[in-house]
């Protein structure tokens, strides 16, 4: 019974990790690559580690496996947010077909302070872009 569970869990985990590898190679943009690494790879690794915990069937090893899974589920979003934030600050461009950039003109370039005031939204650059989008949908 547990062997069938191990077959299923390792198959799905390997498929998700393979999808993450293909996505990292094929995605056109840094931010889309970050989203692939956070979701698909974390789910695949969780399934593979869970199959290892089922195979050994010992309470100490199961606790260790659950600790690794919990640690990865906690640290993957934090690391993805940190690397995405710093790469947005260093000026890496979005994909040219992406429709909107919510952070545009909302932070000061020297102090790296984010603001979400109404004044900052209505700066001339953003309104011009919105007009262009409305004229040429």
């Amino acid at each position, binding site marked *: 019974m547990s*062997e069938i569970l*191990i*077959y299923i869990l*390792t*198959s799905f*985990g*390997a*498929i998700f*990790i*393979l999808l*993450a*590898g*293909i996505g*990292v*190679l094929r995605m056109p943009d*840094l931010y889309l*690559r*970050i989203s692939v*690494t956070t979701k698909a*790879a*974390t789910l*695949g*690794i969780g399934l*593979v*580690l869970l*199959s*290892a915990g089922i*195979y*050994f069937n*010992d309470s100490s*090893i199961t606790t*260790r*496996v659950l*600790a*690794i899974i919990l*640690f*990865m589920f906690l*640290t993957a979003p*934090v*690391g993805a947010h*940190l*690397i995405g*934030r*710093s*790469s947005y*600050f*260093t*000026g*890496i461009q979005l994909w040219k077909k992406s429709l909107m950039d919510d952070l545009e003109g909302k932070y000061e370039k020297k102090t*790296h302070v984010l603001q979400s005031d109404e004044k900052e939204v209505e700066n001339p650059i953003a309104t011009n872009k919105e007009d262009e989008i409305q004229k040429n949908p």
Partner: protein
Amino acid sequence: MNLYEFLYYIILPILSISAVLVFIRFLLGPSLSDRVVALDLLITIGIGIISIYSIVTNQPTFLDIAMILALIAFLGTVAFSYYLEKRKKNE
């Protein structure tokens, strides 16, 4: 086909192929942040390969190394993002 042959001949090659794909992105990556993301994913795939090996060789001690690798991956990502931001600020 028993469980060990299935893990050894099907699951491990799939994980190796995905590691090779990520390593191609690590070599290509146009910016430094792409390389950091690819390195993070490489270490994550390494954790999966270690856990499959611990099933095949029936040694649960390898899972400790997987835990340490997860720690090192997180610390590396945090340090790289911190110093990327610092470097841009000094220029």
